[in-house]
């Protein structure tokens, strides 16, 4: 095959060569340039002009959304097109649409993580951000739909008017728990993943505001290997929790429809079918956002054409699952022999809403077939346009499911035809405004690419740096070795103060691991290694004990599970029993969704809080921040710190130990004078 022959010289990384893995990052990048490029997006004084144009449009739409909300509440729900029989219309369609969009972010951050799809590191941060913004858009709609958005606490499980508890057997309440848990866990996952990168921004900050803002947000992260160890475990646990969670969220959303007996809604395939559709639309949205973003912010080396091609393949796969569900539903509608089922499906395809049905089929099933062609999958314009079709198609899928089933239900005398008003349409556009505004702000102020994760999937042979830099580093090392004495003399100028500890700087993980072995063998206990990303093999060298985080999470999960069960049992079966749809007061199947959601919620909070508490974070100040060069730990350098509190600590002996390693720079950090206590953002960086 031609492709294989030219691979060696070609720069097209979408070519497949089974004998090697394609690089995940293009260009001549090393850890330094990854930090520079990604932080550079946030640090540049002004975003590109396209950003201003996009933000002007999206914030205008977002504002119009708020104004229209005022109009809606002022005049009443009649400004919408809701009517009988279509009492659920745009608000629920938009809710389901936006929740679905969010799913791609969790798929990328959690499921692809569990499946070791390392290419996800380039896109997971932006996709997770998109998840959070999409869920925010989704949550607005049921809030409005309640009619009194200033009383959202009516959704919470407490006995409101007349001591009545919410009905835990209602799928609408399951939604509250499912989407609420989803939002919380996604936020925790996103924020936790961002902490090391926020620390990078903190260490590079040049203005006071940035130092304080990123300094607080980074929680005093200092790249400690003991921290990384628990961080990685927490990441794995959160991924393992988010995976069933993301399946559950759209499943629960599908229950809103499928537990009823309305033809076209009551179908057992709804849960997996909704999940597949959610991921399908979510990936289309990720591509829609990232194609311009990688262009505007110069991130093409991290979000490569191969990333886009992979996303196209996932869109094709999930689109096929959606097509499968359409087909099976149609077949079973016929096979069931149920006249009303048969009518509903024929009515969708041929009835008054046939136009919407065929838009859905064309956009979701026919159009994505173009992704079979590699030429299409590697053409960013084509991808962007086809993904726009998918977004439209998936919005119409919700329209078709919701409106057609309600408009023509069991009673022909109550049939109607729903037409949206201008307010419906403008509020839909407005929700896009909110979504895009939030995303653009994210691009401007937060690291769009997970730097620490990208660094951990790059080749890091010692001396991986470019040739010139290698040369320069060699010089530094030599100079450092020669001038060690004088440097110590210089830092000794702190006269009379006690040392906080010693710090040795390394330029490669291999040097660091060797040095860590030496320090451990020397018998030190109060010491640590600091790295820009988790370095594997270091844990063994340092003899780090396995974390107990898993047990904390298990305890959290058990508490969540039992509180879910007890809450539902006590409220609906004991405190205020109400008969609903002929179900027993305590009906276990109906309690499973909320029990599951609370189990995941408590476990995830336990993982998040447990990780930071075990790490002793947040701790905004630490003696290592006083060191002169330590800020590079969040970019491209590796450090070993020995605390003066260590029983074996002896200034001369410990210094000699560190000097015998392959370090490029050694430093004594002195305790600060009483008056000059400073935070991580304002250490004495020169």
């Amino acid at each position, binding site marked *: 095959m031609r492709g294989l022959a030219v691979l060696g010289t070609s720069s097209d990384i979408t070519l497949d060569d089974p004998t090697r893995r394609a690089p995940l990052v293009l260009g001549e990048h090393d850890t330094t340039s990854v930090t520079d490029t990604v932080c550079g997006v946030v640090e540049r004084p002004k975003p590109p002009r396209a950003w201003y144009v996009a933000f002007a449009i999206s914030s205008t739409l977002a504002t119009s959304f708020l104004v229209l909300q005022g109009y809606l509440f002022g005049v009443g729900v009649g400004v919408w097109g809701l009517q009988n029989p279509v009492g659920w219309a745009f608000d629920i369609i938009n809710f389901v649409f936006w929740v679905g969009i969010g799913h791609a972010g969790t798929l990328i951050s959690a499921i692809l993580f569990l499946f070791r799809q390392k290419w996800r590191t380039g896109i997971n941060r932006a996709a997770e951000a998109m998840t959070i913004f999409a869920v925010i858009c989704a949550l607005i709609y049921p809030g409005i739909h309640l009619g009194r958005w200033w009383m959202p606490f009516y959704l919470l499980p407490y006995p409101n008017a007349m001591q009545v508890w919410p009905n835990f057997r209602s799928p609408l309440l399951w939604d509250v728990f499912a989407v609420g848990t989803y939002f919380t866990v996604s936020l925790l996952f996103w924020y936790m993943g961002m902490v090391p990168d926020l620390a990078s921004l903190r260490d590079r900050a040049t203005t006071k505001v940035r130092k304080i803002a990123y300094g607080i947000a980074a929680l005093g992260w200092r790249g400690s290997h003991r921290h990384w160890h628990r961080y990685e475990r927490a990441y794995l646990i959160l991924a393992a929790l988010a995976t069933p969670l993301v399946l559950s969220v759209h499943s629960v959303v599908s229950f809103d429809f499928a537990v009823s007996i309305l033809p076209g809604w009551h179908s057992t395939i709804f849960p997996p079918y909704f999940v597949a559709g959610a991921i399908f639309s979510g990936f289309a949205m990720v591509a829609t956002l990232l194609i311009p973003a990688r262009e505007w912010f110069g991130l093409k080396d991290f979000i490569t054409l191969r990333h886009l091609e992979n996303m196209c393949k996932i869109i094709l796969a999930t689109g096929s699952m959606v097509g499968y569900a359409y087909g099976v539903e149609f077949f*079973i509608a016929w096979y069931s022999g149920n006249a009303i089922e048969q009518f509903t499906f024929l009515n969708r395809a041929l009835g008054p809403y046939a136009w919407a049905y065929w838009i859905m089929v064309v956009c979701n099933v026919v159009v994505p077939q173009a992704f079979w062609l590699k030429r299409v999958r590697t053409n960013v314009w084509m991808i962007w346009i086809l993904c726009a079709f998918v977004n439209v198609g998936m919005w119409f899928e919700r329209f078709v499911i919701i409106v057609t089933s309600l408009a023509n239900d069991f009673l022909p005398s109550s049939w109607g035809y729903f037409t949206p008003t201008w307010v419906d349409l403008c509020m839909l556009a407005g929700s896009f405004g909110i979504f895009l505004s939030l995303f653009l702000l994210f691009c401007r102020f937060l690291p769009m690419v997970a730097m620490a994760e990208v660094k951990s999937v790059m080749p890091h042979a010692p001396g991986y740096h470019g040739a010139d830099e290698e040369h320069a580093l060699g010089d530094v090392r030599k100079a450092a070795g020669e001038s060690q004495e004088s440097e110590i003399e210089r830092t000794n100028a702190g006269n009379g103060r006690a040392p906080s500890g010693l710090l040795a700087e390394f330029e490669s993980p291999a040097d660091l691991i060797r040095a860590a072995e030496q320090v451990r063998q020397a018998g030190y206990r109060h010491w640590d290694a600091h790295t820009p990303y988790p370095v594997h093999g270091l844990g063994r060298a340092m003899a780090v004990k396995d974390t107990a985080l898993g047990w904390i999470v298990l305890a959290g999960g058990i508490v969540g599970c039992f509180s879910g069960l007890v809450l539902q049992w006590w409220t609906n079966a004991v405190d205020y029993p109400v008969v609903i749809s002929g179900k027993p007061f305590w009906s276990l199947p109906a309690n499973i969704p909320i029990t599951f959601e609370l189990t995941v919620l408590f476990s995830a909070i336990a993982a998040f809080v447990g990780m930071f508490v075990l790490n002793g974070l947040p701790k905004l100040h630490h003696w290592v921040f006083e060191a002169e060069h330590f800020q590079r730990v969040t970019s491209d350098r590796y450090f070993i710190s020995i605390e003066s509190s260590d029983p074996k600590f002896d200034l001369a002996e410990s210094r000699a130990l560190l000097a015998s390693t392959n370090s490029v720079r050694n430093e004594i950090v002195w305790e600060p004078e009483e008056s000059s206590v400073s935070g991580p953002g304002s250490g004495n960086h020169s």
Partner: protein
Amino acid sequence: MGAPEGLEERRALDGGGSVLSSPAMWVGVTLLGGGGAAAIFGNGGSQRFLQSYLLAFTFFLSLALGALFFVLISHLTRSGWSVTLRRLAEDLASTLWLAALLFVPIVLGIDELYEWAREDVVAHDAVLQGKAAYLNTNFFIIRWIFYFAVWVSLAEYFSRLSGKQDETGDPELTLRMERASAPGMLLFAVTITFASFDLLMSLDAHWFSTIFGVYFFSGSTVSFFALLAVVVLFMQRIGFVRHSVTVEHLHDVGKLTFAFVVFWAYIAFSQYMLIWYGNLPEETGWYERRQEGDWTWASLGLLAGHFLIPFLFLMSRHVKRRRGMLAAGATWVLLMHVLDLYWIIMPQKQFDTAGRIPLHGFDVLCLAGFALLFIAAAKQTMGRRSLIPERDPRLAEAMAFENEG
């Protein structure tokens, strides 16, 4: 843990040879043939035998289909870690030709198993008359010829190309298999869905559930991963693939078993919950038959045995990395898959099993007979070449692979 150090690893079965020379084959044929003859000439009638036969057939068919799925998904995702396991899956999927042969008795006994195949029943049943365009014996046979044509050719295609790569080492073959895997997966999804409708769902020809194809798929997949663990552990015990399949691979097979246990539970719960909540008589009857009398215990047993127990047991990393424990967990999952299929197949109106579990010697006999036949067939396919895709371009990656978490 892992394989004992210093032991030689063997990667090829001796001989292989014709499946007809295998004693297991002949014992299996004798068991099934003897059972069938006893049923036909005995006074109980052949229906009870056919029920057991259908159970055993479905069990082994689902395992072979699970193997085919694993081959397809490995290529589709350009999987590296699974290369050392893929040949075993190819060989297990290659037993599908045997399933095609063993399907014949089901066709012969079709009116004993399926009410829609009995003209006297259909004549008085308006619902079945409505479905007759799909549920009729001729179309049923045509469909199954199509399913087996698809499955056997997919299994043969991937097995043949992979075998060819052992000789030539050509990486282009990997690309060809990757390209074929995508349309292959589509064909697989459609065929396994309709096969499950035909084989299992239409046992109760009035009942319908759109998720049923996914349910059957989830059971097939989880039991295949369990089977893979059992097969690998057994082969290593008798001296094969001791080094090329490491504890890391077993750990991953354990993880996949665990994941699909959860997936099965998710699909099973979705189906149950929606039917329970909707409470329409045309749907709930199916579950009602499985909740009356002794069947209550089978249903609860499925909940505990097919979900809670393996979920808690296989959650631990420790368990998945210990040979004995993994073998126990995997065997348990396989047994629960038998229970799942038993629970689907047996409680039917036409089998007159209201409220009692009709355990019968035929169940054991048929499962044992099928097991022997499939072992003989698998041994033959495994004997054709090395148990490892020797020159797969990603073999080195698979051997070096280590779990991080």
